[in-house]
């Protein structure tokens, strides 16, 4: 039974933190901390004129967020303290407004988590505001719906993340820990059975091996280049196939920050967007064709540089006219670059079915996304393909599995810590119930990621694997 994944909600007096601005909207991100230690923790990661505890309530203060372990600056921020009870949650609340979009904000949030703050559950700020009487009771039903919706969304997102290799991996840690815990428990609850005692070295070996794997997985979080810098998607194609309209259409709902890259010519434009949680840097390039025009040559040179740096190329073709040599040359060039690419047929709205079929035949064996940038058709599936190709790319970088949710990271960090404590107990020759305490702790943390509890599983394991009972 079990606490398990309900652990988080049970602690309504924990200090919690979350990003309060929606994903990918606006150039400013807000990280909010609430709870009795909010001020104390903000103080550990904020470097400003005076310590956070001495800043008066409701005053905006300028300073820097630093990594509490290395002292490195993470971002320049504006920080505001709202002292209890005069805050949204009626608890001590600290608001950190940072530059930059998603990535910087995540980084700032991460620093708070390093100091022992717990990541807020979906809707938890609102819930606290409600519980503490900050929100009118007539809003109760609305609050309930919000919490439910957010939780379900969180669940769905979680499940999505957890599909495939990552969940397989985390479940494999869980299975191994359950094996180990069952083994420890059987020695305690069935001490008179003929079961050889576990050797300390073996226990440490197994715990260390699981911890190593968790470490590897944790390191993918920091090293995931794509999450850090965004997926670099470069749009290419000969002139007038609709590259710019495609860029604008893709940005329409998901535009993040407009970041003109300094030093670029007007021919290369890049913007950031957030497709389903994956930050994407979209780059529009000059029309690409064989030319002797100096200006065009300069543009083409830049396009080539961009192509070389791309994680993913979108080769756009106008399918309302026949695919020609120029299109095919570009394709050939892309293939020699060995970059990942997607073929996009634009202007599907005005192209005749016959022509589309004919064009497709010329590119046989290639998968093609058909869109109309003008009408907004096919954009969703294009985004899906961009996102899924990014997952493939991420896999390449991390031998298969990538940790992309800060929530999962938080849980795995706690699991890691529990495993260290368990190993300490073994090293100190403590008996199995002490080791079990922290193995169970690690399992509870992992259970939060995969949404499973422990106790019954342990007993099931014992009964199915050991012949016990007199």
């Amino acid at each position, binding site marked *: *039974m*079990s*606490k398990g*994944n*309900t652990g*988080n*909600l*049970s602690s*309504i*007096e924990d200090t919690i933190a979350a990003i309060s601005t929606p994903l990918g909207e606006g150039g400013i991100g807000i990280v*909010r901390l609430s709870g009795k230690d909010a001020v104390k923790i903000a103080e550990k990661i904020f470097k400003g004129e005076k310590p956070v505890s001495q800043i008066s309530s*409701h005053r905006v203060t300028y300073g820097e967020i630093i990594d509490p372990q290395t002292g490195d600056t993470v971002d320049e921020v504006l920080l505001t303290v709202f002292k209890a*009870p*005069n*805050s*949204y949650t*009626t608890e001590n609340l600290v*608001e950190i407004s940072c530059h930059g979009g998603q990535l910087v904000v995540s980084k700032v949030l991460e620093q708070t988590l390093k100091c022992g703050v717990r990541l807020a*559950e*979906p809707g*938890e700020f*609102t*819930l606290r505001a*409600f*519980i*503490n*009487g*900050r929100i009118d*009771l007539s809003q*109760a*039903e609305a*609050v*309930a719906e919000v*919490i*439910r919706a957010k*939780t379900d969304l969180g*669940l769905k997102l979680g499940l999505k993340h957890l599909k495939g290799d990552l969940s397989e991996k985390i479940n494999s840690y869980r299975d191994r820990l359950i094996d180990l815990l069952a083994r420890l*428990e059987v*020695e*305690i*609850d069935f*001490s*008179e*059975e*003929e079961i050889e005692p576990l050797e300390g070295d073996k226990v440490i070996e197994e715990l260390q091996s699981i911890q190593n794997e968790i470490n590897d997985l944790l390191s993918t979080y920091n090293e995931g280049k794509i999450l850090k810098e965004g997926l670099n998607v470069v749009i290419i194609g000969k002139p007038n196939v609709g590259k710019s309209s495609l860029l604008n259409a893709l940005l329409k709902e998901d535009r993040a920050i407009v970041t003109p890259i300094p030093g670029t010519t007007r021919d290369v434009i890049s913007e950031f967007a957030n497709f389903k949680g994956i930050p994407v840097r979209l780059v529009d390039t000059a029309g690409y064709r064989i030319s002797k025009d100096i200006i065009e040559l300069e543009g083409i040179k830049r396009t080539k540089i961009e192509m070389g740096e791309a994680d993913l190329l979108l080769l756009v073709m106008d399918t309302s006219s026949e695919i020609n040599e120029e299109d095919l040359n570009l394709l050939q060039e892309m293939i020699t670059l060995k970059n990942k690419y997607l073929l996009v047929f634009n202007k599907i709205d005005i192209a005749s079915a016959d022509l589309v079929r004919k064009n497709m035949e010329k590119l046989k064996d290639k998968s093609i996304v058909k869109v109309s940038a003008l009408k907004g058709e096919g954009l969703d599936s294009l985004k899906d393909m961009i996102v899924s190709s990014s997952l493939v790319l991420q896999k390449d970088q991390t031998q298969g599995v990538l940790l992309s949710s800060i929530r999962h990271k938080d849980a795995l960090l706690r699991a890691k810590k529990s495993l260290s404590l368990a190993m300490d107990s073994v090293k*100190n*020759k*403590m*008996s199995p*119930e*002490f080791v079990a*305490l922290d193995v*169970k702790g690690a399992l509870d943390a992992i259970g939060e990621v995969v949404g499973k*509890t422990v*106790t019954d599983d342990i*007993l099931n394991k014992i*009964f199915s694997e050991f*012949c016990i*009972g*007199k």
Partner: protein
Amino acid sequence: MLTYEEEFDIIVVGAGHAGCEAALAAARMRQKTILFTMNKDTIAQMSCNPAIGGSAKGQLVKEIDALGGEIGLAADQTAIQMKTLNKKKGPAVWSSRTQNDRSAYRLVMRDYLENQNNLFIKQDTIVEILVKNEKAYGVITANRIGYHGEAVILTCGTFLNGLIHIGLEHFPAGRAGEFPALGLTENLINFGFHAGRLKTGTPPRLDGRTIDFSKTNPQPGDESPKPFSLRTKNELQNKCLCYLTYTNQETHEYILNNLDRSPLYSGKIKGVGPRYCPSIEDKVVKFKDKLRHQLFLEPEGIGTNEYYVNGFATSLPEDVQLKALRTVHGLENVQMMRTGYAIEYDYFPPTQLKHSLETKLVENLFFAGQINGTSGYEEAAAQGIMAGINAVLKLRGENPFILDRSQAYIGVLIDDLVTKGTEEPYRMFTSRAEYRLVLREDNADQRLLEYGNRFGLVSNNLYEAYLNKMERVNKEKKRLRRVFVSISAFEHLIGRMENNKKICLAKILKMPEITYKDIIEVDWEARELEKEVYEQVELEIKYEGYIKRQVLEIEKAKKLESMVIPDDFNYDGLIGFKTEALEKLKKTKPISLGQASRISGVTPGDIAVLMVHLKQFMAKTSAVGCLSTAAKEESTDSTDEID
């Protein structure tokens, strides 16, 4: 129907381990109590193994004792061998166990009952519960005599529609040689209760004169054993040995060849049996690669030659039982005195109960013991004393006595039962307790004695002696933190060179190599302490770090536990829940958000939603003291509106 002229406060039906504790607690709390038993000669019968305690069960016995129950005292008085399990591990999992003289135990417990003021014993079978307006007010006996009482506690054991299986033969019985209780299940179903069917089994008993003990390994008890009960003053003596022998390939083959005559494997038995207590045929089938299984031969008592074969529960036909036993070393010429059997019986899934063990459907009706799907004397006795106390509190109009999961195994037991129910006979394990490190045998008094005393079940003398002990424990703990000595004095024990700095004795005691006895060598003041005091000091200091961590976790969990869901909270029409969660919440009717969070299928999201509805409900009914948060409704400042 005749009505018995006298009325009672409390009626207890069944005089097994649950019934005895319930009746004693009720009578001691000054309620006029009547205890019905189908047979006065089998009161407190140990139906299965002649032993009390064991892993997690020893802890239960200590807890019952601290509350003022009798199982511990009766076990001490009739013990013929004592052992502490897990002695090589930490104190949290030390579990005491006694082998007991089966007949003596029965007689000792009956003696307590017969000499208890306010308690009357009646041999009769109860066939109906009297209920009016969904409230119990009495019972009807098989002879159609009505007894009126304000509360009824049912502790029916395996007797409800009990059916014994031996091979392919089966016959109605409550235990071997005893009648089953018929009619009561159907009566309860008529009130709207759901019933289920469970199975358990017991091994054959052997004639000791036909056992060649020289071919077995003798198993002695512990030297200088400790009693269960705080009231036991005499020293316990080991009076006999147990013996260990093993099954072998021949035994297994013989059993496998005769499975067609097993009621388990031919589908005759429908009830669900306990996985932790499998029959020998189950072990042989499910663990084929195991070359042998342990069999403990345990004496049934001092004045008898009968031996219990622990590890050989079976419902195989009698001839198969005998021939299989005779393949075992030492049992080549054995004679069986009693045949092993399986028994199926009705139980009432315990999610139909409140934490007080009162049924949700019928007021003033309480269930305890195997009727709730548990197994084991200790589990039964624990529920018995809790049902007894709670029935009395109910009649007095006081709040129920509910122990939480961090206070006692009893709390874990009852919370598991009423929250999750059980589909197999439920046995306590230490791994069921999330706060195992603080639920120890040695601190059962610290956890529960005060309650026992408050209810009048624990004498003031005993309670004062405890307070006195604790005072000395705390004083010594403080002293050990205050006295600094040079670590070099302990170098020979630690086995490594330390610099010559002075550290406090408490820190030294924390080192794995050091015991309190080593401290005595250096620190003369320590010598004045009694064993029970310094042992407690040693343990609390040695494991301080771990214990502190558990205590922190307990505090965290308390927040949700303290958010009470009132009885009249209505789930109908509430939005935001998953369908499955809503159904389970409606069925279980949890008493707190903590309990709600332990119901399988209820997610953290559901709990958040529940919290919101609850808050609204409390505001509407303007009840007080539910959501204990630092709500400061009046002092909100509009300038800090952020969303």
